[in-house]
């Protein structure tokens, strides 16, 4: 697979600019109608989904010429997929996949971003996307008496993820998750120091080989430990295990659940009681990789039927963001007494990105924070006291943007809210 395989899709771009806005049916006014942070921030058409396809088309035809401006365009994209979903409201074509492949090609050809190289070096040396991590991956669990899946059989592996494991400010999420699972009586364990990065964020950055290495390491460990079900509280990890591992035929029969899905299941089965009142007006942010991009991968191989129609044999099914994880987090919040959820204008498949994805957090923190501020302003407009998310990377970026802007909004991961209710 490479960008050449998407020539047909790239050629279908009609420059309608649907990729710049949320699906038109969901436009509620002059505010919050934009979908793509990159074109919203940088304005030249080149920074939109369609613009990226037109650049790709030119380079497929005339050869790839790497310039500073090209790399600026390539790396100033959170790979959030909003363009893809808006386009596919009307069109039958891939948008995000060729954008992924373009970035992968840049990396393969040696045109990387130094800030991302630093992160990937950390991944190669320490198995984490948090550079210069001084502690060990499992240190956060000291004293919690959690099972080690490399030594004991469990029903569920809780994959903690890089940021939650290593960032002292985020370890609260791991502890909250463990407490919730313990409270529900789940037979779970962690891999502790044997856990390694899922590889998902490396893939977003374009380092496909590093992603594949991580995927193989994880699947080997899962196999050795007899893991059949993985639960993670990281949206990027969830997407990697569920979608990317499947895309590259590495997932096998592994069951992958996001913590929001799992808590929702436990609550609905009566195994977890959320009894304590949590008086809080909140709004919920759909992380891109838990929401629109979390649909299962659709394996398809076929050919365009010769002629004038853009149709295939066998018919191609598109991932259009229809079946992302939207209901479970909302159902969980609804099951907590006292929590009042007010939705933002852009939600579910057309949610605005937190800004933290695609390596932008590392390569252009100013743009990451700008993107987060747009979302925080939208959250504030609901009257909510707090924005709740379900991804540690998003929470961290929101927190930093709040610190910079002086906003009074609070930010929580959903497990923190659930923890308050048990």
């Amino acid at each position, binding site marked *: 697979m490479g960008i050449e395989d998407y020539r047909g899709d790239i050629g279908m771009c009609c420059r309608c600019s649907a990729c710049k806005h949320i699906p038109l049916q969901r436009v509620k006014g002059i505010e919050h109608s934009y979908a793509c942070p990159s074109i919203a921030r940088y304005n030249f058409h080149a920074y939109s989904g369609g613009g990226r396809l*037109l650049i790709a088309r030119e380079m497929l035809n005339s050869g790839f010429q790497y310039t500073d401006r090209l790399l600026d365009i390539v790396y100033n994209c959170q790979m959030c997929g909003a363009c893809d979903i808006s386009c596919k409201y009307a069109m039958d074509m891939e948008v995000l996949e060729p954008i992924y492949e373009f970035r992968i090609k840049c990396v393969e050809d040696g045109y990387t971003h130094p800030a991302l190289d630093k992160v990937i070096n950390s991944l190669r040396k320490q198995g984490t996307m948090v550079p210069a991590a001084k502690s060990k991956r499992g240190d956060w669990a000291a004293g919690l008496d959690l099972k080690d899946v490399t030594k004991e059989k469990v029903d569920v592996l809780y994959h903690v993820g890089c940021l939650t494991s290593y960032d002292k400010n985020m370890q609260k999420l791991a502890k909250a998750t463990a407490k919730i699972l313990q409270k529900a009586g789940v037979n779970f364990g962690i891999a502790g120091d044997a856990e390694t990065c899922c590889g998902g964020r490396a893939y977003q950055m374009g380092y496909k080989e590093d992603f594949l290495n991580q995927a193989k390491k994880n699947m080997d460990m899962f196999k050795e430990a007899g893991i059949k079900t993985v639960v993670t509280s990281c949206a990027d990890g969830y997407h990697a295990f569920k979608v990317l591992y499947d895309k590259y035929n590495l997932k096998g029969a592994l069951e992958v659940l996001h913590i929001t899905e799992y808590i929702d299941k436990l609550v609905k089965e009566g195994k977890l009681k959320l009894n304590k009142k949590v008086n809080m007006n909140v709004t919920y942010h759909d992380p891109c990789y838990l929401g629109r991009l979390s649909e299962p991968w659709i394996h398809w191989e076929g050919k365009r039927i010769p002629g004038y129609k853009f149709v295939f044999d066998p018919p191609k099914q598109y991932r259009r963001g229809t079946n992302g994880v939207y209901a479970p987090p909302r159902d969980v919040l609804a099951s907590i007494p006292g929590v009042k959820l007010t939705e933002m204008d852009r939600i579910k498949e057309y949610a605005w990105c937190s800004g933290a994805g695609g390596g932008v957090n590392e390569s252009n923190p100013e743009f990451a924070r700008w993107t987060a501020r747009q979302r925080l302003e939208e959250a504030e407009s609901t009257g909510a006291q707090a924005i709740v998310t379900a991804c540690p990377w998003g929470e961290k970026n929101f927190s930093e943007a709040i610190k910079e802007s002086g906003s009074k909004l609070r930010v929580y991961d959903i497990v923190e809210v659930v923890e308050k209710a048990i």
Partner: protein
Amino acid sequence: MALSRDAYKEFEGVVGMENISDDPVIQYAYRAPKITIILPSSTEEVQAVVRLCNKHKIPFKAQSTGWSFTPPNYDLLFLDLRRMNHIIEINEKNMYAVVEPYVISAELQAELFKRGLNCNIKGSGSTCTALALSGHGHMGITTSTGDRNDLATEWVTDEGEIVRLGTLGSSDEWFCGDGPGPSLRGILRSGGIITKQATKIYHWPGPTRFALEGASPRYTLPKVPPNMMVRYFSFPSIEKLVEAELKIGESEISYELMGFCPSMVSSNITTSNEEDFATLDRFTKDVQGPGFMVIIAGNFPEDFEYRRKVLEQIIKETGGKSLKVVEDPAVQSTLLFQCTRISASIRETFRAGGAFASILVQGQRYDMHVRWLEEAAEMKREMIRKGLVIADDGQQFGWAEEQGHLGHTEIFCRYNPYDAESLKAVKEWSEKVSQRGIDGCFAMPSSSVGMLPADVVGPRVSNYHLWFGEIKKAFDPNGIGENTGFSYAGKDTAGAHTPIYDRHSEEASAKH
């Protein structure tokens, strides 16, 4: 672009270095290898840019939302107006809204719905600019058409003068395009850059927001809103269809009368090409001839009932046949939100084959235009038989405007733009139909492929192009403003664009 560094610096001084670029990669995205792209954010910046263009004799052209458009491929400064994205005013009392060029119709309409109001939306869809000038739309029977909606206008001429047209010329009011103050609406197409414009707005009897459920691409509306109804009727002949359209216009009962062919109905309600073609096959069997979709929207139950009964009577008198599938509340609902918010035009045009070529005309829809494009439909069916264009029903379509006093008629072919044979056939068809339009004194056509040059069309219409050329020269003595094709000032540059679809043969994905 051959812009000297000194000149570039001057432009940069106006908009800031972040907002100007002649980098080849930026140009690739605009499909124009010689242009410098600049992103002004205000009228004053537009004026300063245009004045600099005059100073350095640099040609320029501006774009609002740029639907399916690429800039010319000669050296020029290209003003992408996407930073000018504000609604300046919604005046409910005087029924107008003032917008900048990059406000899209979906945004303006959503704001208007909240106030029980609506605006005209171009048929190309609500992702396009909400500026009034130019553009015919599905709701034209109620909301008229683009160039009948523009009111006061702020306009930067080709020389860089800010001219305020209509009431704006003598006050700070936007309610009239013709005065008191200068009225130059007739020549707005000859050049310059519109930086703000007031557009008429209309009463909207529907909900303040469609309470959609589900996720993209299949949004649903749980039930048809009160006092609203959608139907599709086909007729035994063009004459009967026209009679029904006129009666509906006379009785003023319809909010929207869109002369969809069945293929456009199926495109709107389906979410993939395969589903679209299968649905069209079913529709084609259920229609008796040409048809239209009609939306009834009452202000209260008795009003709705009156309109519904009048419609029923008209359809009975004209032999119309309802397409049963559209009576299904779920289908009605979908058509209702798609066809009032105009969100599925891309499905109608680009999805099937990648491109479409259209011949359209506005004015007197009936008799002349419909007959002319019925001939075009026959020619199109021949292309369908040869497998050169998408096999839809082959029909012309259109709609009444201002209760039938005006109308829009159009026909398009959807095709694979990378298939040389298809492209050639479509171009020839387009030229032939256009020529027939002027030879048969049917209409002055406008077409997207194979457009007849101004010096072929002009002599048939009182040499309008020469007159426009004179006006153009008066406003643009340096000859650097856009030559739109409506005017003629020595050369016709209308065709000098790189098509959005390049000429390389594009192979579709072998596998994903």
